[in-house]
C-alpha cells in the first residue's frame, strides 16, 4: 500500500500511531529507581497496568538505501572487502529500524568489529586448516584420486555440519543484538545439536528424493524458534510438518511429471522437425536445424524454470504462513499472508534489480578505468603488463558488483513480509522484563565464512 514515509509511523492502515497513543492509558508502572532520581514522587501506577493489548507491526521504508549501497560498495573495494562487516552492520541498522512495533523501531546494536572478529576467528580455526589440509593432500597424495576423494568427502561433511552450527550461532548473535524498547532479544539452545540435525537431514535429502524437506525445514525452524525470546517473553513454535506435505506433494509431483512430459513433448516436437526437414527443398543447412532444435530446448527449460519458480514460491508462501501462525508468545501468535504471486514477484524483481545494479556498477567503473588505462598505455609502455596483473582484481570487483544492491532487495523482501505480518491476540508488555543472560559475543563468523549469511 502506498505510504508517505515522513508521516507514517504506525502504518497506513492503522492510522497515526501517535494519535493512538493519546487514546491509550499508560500501562507503565514506575518504581523508585535510579533513573527517577530527582523526581519528588514515584509515578503513580496506571489503573490498567499489566493489561494485555493487541500489538501493531508495520514497515517504514528506510531512506537512502541506494546511496548506502553504493557507499558500502566503494568502501569494500577500497579496503579489499574488509569494510564488508561494517557495511553489513550499517545496513542492518536501517533494516531493523524500518520495522515498527507499536510505532517504535527495532534497534540493532551489533558492531562491525564483532562481525570482523568472529570471521577472523573462524577463518583461523576452520578455513586455514581446511586450506592447509587440501594443500598437504594435494602435495602428498596428488596422484591418488581415492585420497583426494576421501579428503573432499570429509571436508564436505565438516563444512555441512559447521554450516548448521553457523546458522544457529548467527541467529543467536543477531537476536542478542536486537532490542525493542530497550528489551533485548535472545536465543537459547545448543548450536551443535542444531548442526547435527542440519547435517543428517541434509544427507537424507537425496535418499528420500527430497521428501524429508518439509519435516527438515519444520524441525530446524522449531529448534531455532523454540529458543527465541524477547526479554522474559519466550517464543513457542508448534508447527507440524504434516500440513506442509500436501503443498510439497503438489510441488514435487508437478515438477516430476512436468519434467517427464516436457522431455517427451520436446522429443516429439524435435523429432517432427527433424523428420520434416528436407535439405534440398528447404534450402537450409544442418547448422540452421541445430539452432532451431537448440532454441526449442532452451524454450522448454525456461518454461520449466518458470513453472518451478511459481510453484516453489507458492510452497514457500505456505511454509512462511504456516510457520508464522505456529509462532506464539504470551497469548498472541503471528499471522502472515504471503502469497505465491507476491513472493515470486519479489524474487524475480529482486534478481532483476541485482542484475541492473551489477551492470550499472561495472559500466561506471569501465567508463572510468578504460580511458585512464588507454592514456597510461600510450605514455608508459610497461603499464600493459601491470594492467594484466590487475585483471583478476577487476574480476573480483565484478563479482562484488553483483551484490551491490542487496540492501535494496533485502529491504523489499522484508517489507513484503512485514506488511503481511500481524500479531494476533493480546500481549502484556508490562510483564515482559529485561533478560540478563549473556548474549553471544561474536557468533556470526561461521555463517559468514560459508557465505550463508542472509544479511
Amino acid at each position: 500500500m502506498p505510504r508517505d514515509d515522513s508521516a507514517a509511523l504506525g502504518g497506513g492502515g492503522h492510522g497515526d500511531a501517535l494519535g493512538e497513543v493519546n487514546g491509550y492509558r499508560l500501562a507503565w508502572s514506575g518504581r523508585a529507581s535510579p533513573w527517577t532520581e530527582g523526581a519528588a514522587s514515584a509515578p503513580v501506577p496506571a489503573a490498567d497496568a499489566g493489561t494485555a493489548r493487541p500489538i501493531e507491526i508495520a514497515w517504514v521504508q528506510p531512506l537512502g538505501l541506494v546511496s548506502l549501497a553504493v557507499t558500502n560498495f566503494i568502501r569494500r573495494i577500497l579496503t579489499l572487502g574488509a569494510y564488508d562487516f561494517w557495511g553489513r552492520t550499517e545496513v542492518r541498522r536501517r533494516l531493523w529500524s524500518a520495522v515498527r512495533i507499536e510505532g517504535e523501531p527495532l534497534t540493532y546494536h551489533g558492531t562491525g568489529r564483532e562481525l570482523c572478529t568472529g570471521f577472523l576467528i573462524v577463518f583461523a580455526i576452520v578455513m586455514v586448516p581446511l586450506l592447509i589440509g587440501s594443500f598437504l593432500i594435494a602435495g602428498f597424495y596428488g596422484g591418488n584420486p581415492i585420497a583426494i576423494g576421501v579428503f573432499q568427502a570429509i571436508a564436505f561433511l565438516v563444512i555441512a555440519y559447521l554450516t548448521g552450527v553457523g546458522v544457529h550461532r548467527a541467529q543467536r548473535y543477531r537476536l542478542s543484538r536486537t532490542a525493542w524498547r530497550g528489551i533485548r532479544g535472545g536465543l537459547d539452545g545448543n548450536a551443535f545439536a542444531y548442526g547435527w540435525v542440519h547435517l543428517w537431514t541434509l544427507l537424507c535429502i537425496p535418499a528420500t528424493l527430497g521428501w524429508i524437506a518439509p519435516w527438515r525445514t519444520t524441525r530446524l525452524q522449531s529448534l531455532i524458534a523454540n529458543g527465541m525470546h524477547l526479554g522474559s517473553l519466550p517464543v513457542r513454535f508448534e508447527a507440524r510438518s504434516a500440513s506442509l506435505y500436501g503443498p510439497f506433494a503438489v510441488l514435487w509431483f508437478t515438477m516430476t511429471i512436468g519434467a517427464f512430459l516436457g522431455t517427451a513433448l520436446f522429443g516429439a516436437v524435435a523429432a517432427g522437425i527433424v523428420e520434416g526437414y528436407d535439405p534440398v527443398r528447404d534450402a537450409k543447412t544442418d547448422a540452421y536445424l541445430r539452432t532451431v532444435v537448440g532454441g526449442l530446448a532452451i524454450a522448454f527449460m525456461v518454461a520449466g524454470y518458470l513453472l518451478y519458480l511459481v510453484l516453489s514460491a507458492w510452497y514457500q508462501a505456505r511454509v512462511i504462513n504456516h510457520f508464522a501462525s505456529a509462532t506464539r508468545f504470551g497469548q498472541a501468535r503471528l499471522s502472515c499472508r504471503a502469497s505465491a504471486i507476491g513472493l515470486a514477484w519479489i524474487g524475480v524483481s529482486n534478481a532483476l534489480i541485482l542484475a541492473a545494479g551489477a551492470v550499472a556498477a561495472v559500466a561506471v567503473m569501465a567508463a572510468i578505468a578504460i580511458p585512464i588505462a588507454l592514456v597510461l598505455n600510450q605514455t608508459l609502455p610497461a603499464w600493459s603488463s601491470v594492467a594484466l596483473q590487475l585483471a583478476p582484481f577487476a574480476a573480483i570487483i565484478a563479482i562484488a558488483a553483483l551484490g551491490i544492491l542487496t540492501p535494496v532487495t533485502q529491504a523489499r523482501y522484508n517489507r513484503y513480509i512485514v506488511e503481511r505480518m500481524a500479531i494476533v491476540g493480546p500481549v502484556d508488555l508490562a510483564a515482559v522484563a529485561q533478560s540478563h543472560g549473556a548474549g553471544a559475543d561474536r557468533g556470526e563468523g561461521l555463517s559468514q565464512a560459508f557465505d550463508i549469511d542472509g544479511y
Partner: protein
Amino acid sequence: MDTESDGRRFEGRFSNGKSADSARVTVGLGRNGLLIELPGAAEPLVWPYGALQTAEPLTANAIDALVTYTHQPDATLFVPGGPFARALAERAPQTTARAERWRHTRPWLWGVAGLVGVLAVVWASGLSPARSIAGLLPESARDALGEQVIGSMTRGKTVCTAPAGRAAIDQLAQRLSAATNRAVAFDITVVEWGLVNAFAAPGEQIVLTSGIIEAVEGPDELAGVLAHEMGHGLEMHPETGIVRAIGLTAAAELVLGGSAGTLTNLGLVLAQLSYTRSAEREADDHALAILRGAGISAKGLSDFFARVAKLEGAGSGRMPDALRSHPQSEERLARVRSQPSYPATPSLDATQWRALRAICADGKS
C-alpha cells in the same frame, strides 16, 4: 540541575528498559540536556546532550529519533517527527551522520597507515615470508610437491623417453648437477609440447618441452637453459611461488568472504608464475657458476639470450614463452657476456645431441 527549556516541546514515548512497556512523555530541550517529563514526576528527568546516542545517525531527512543515554543503557526515548531530530542534532553533534562517518573512518585511516608502514618495512628489508616458509618445507614434502606439479603438467601429454635421448639428457643433467654449489641431483622430464618453455618444479625437478629442444641451436644453449632452471631450483623459487600462491588464495578467501576453495592444480599455478627480476638474476648467477664448474661454455646461454633479445626487439609473437616474462634480456645478455672465459668442452657430442633432438620422435611412452 538546570531545567530551563527553550520553550519547544515534543511528544514522545519513554521506556525504562526494565519492561517492554512505555510511557507517553513530553520532551523539552534544556540548555544542557533533554528534559523528559515523566508522568507523575514532579521534576523532569535530565539526559545531558553529551552522553546521548541515537539508534540511527541523524540526517536532515530523519523522520524520528530513538535516543539512548550512556548512564541508563537500556532506557529508550522515542520521539517521532523531523523537527525534534534536527533540534537534537544541533545540540548533540555526536549523533549526526557526519560525526558517525568520521568516527567510522578514523580507525581505517590508522589501519591503512599501519599497513603501508608494515609493507614498507617488509619491502625495504627484503623479507620474503613465502621464501622463509618454503625453506622450512622438509625434503619429502618438496619432492611430493614436485611429483604433483610434474603430474599435473604432463597430464594428457606424452612424456618422451627414447632411450638414446634419455641417456643424453641424463648425462647432461648429471654433469650440470655435479657442478651446483650443493651438488644436488636434478631430474629432467621431457614432454611433447609445442610450447617453447622450461619449468623448474619443486624438489629439484625440471620440465623441458620438445618445443624448446627444437628451438635451441646446439647442446650448449640447452645446457645454458637447464643451468638457469637449476638456478631457480637451487634458490627454491618454485616452492616459494607455490607457497605465495597458497597465501594469496587464503587472502583471496579472506577478501571474498571465503568459499572453502581447494588448491589442487599446482601445475597450473607454477606455469603461471613469473619470477621477479632479482630472482632471474639469482638464477643467472647460478647458471654461470654451474656452467663454469661443469666446464661448459657460457656462450650457449648468451647466444640464447641474444636471440631472445632480438625477438623481443622485433616484437615477434614467436618469442620463446620461457622468457616472455623475463625482463631486460639485453641487460642479462651483457652480464653473461662480461664473464671471463675458461676452458670448456661441448656439453654433448654430435651423436648425443642428435639422439636428444629425437627424444620425442620414437620410444614414446
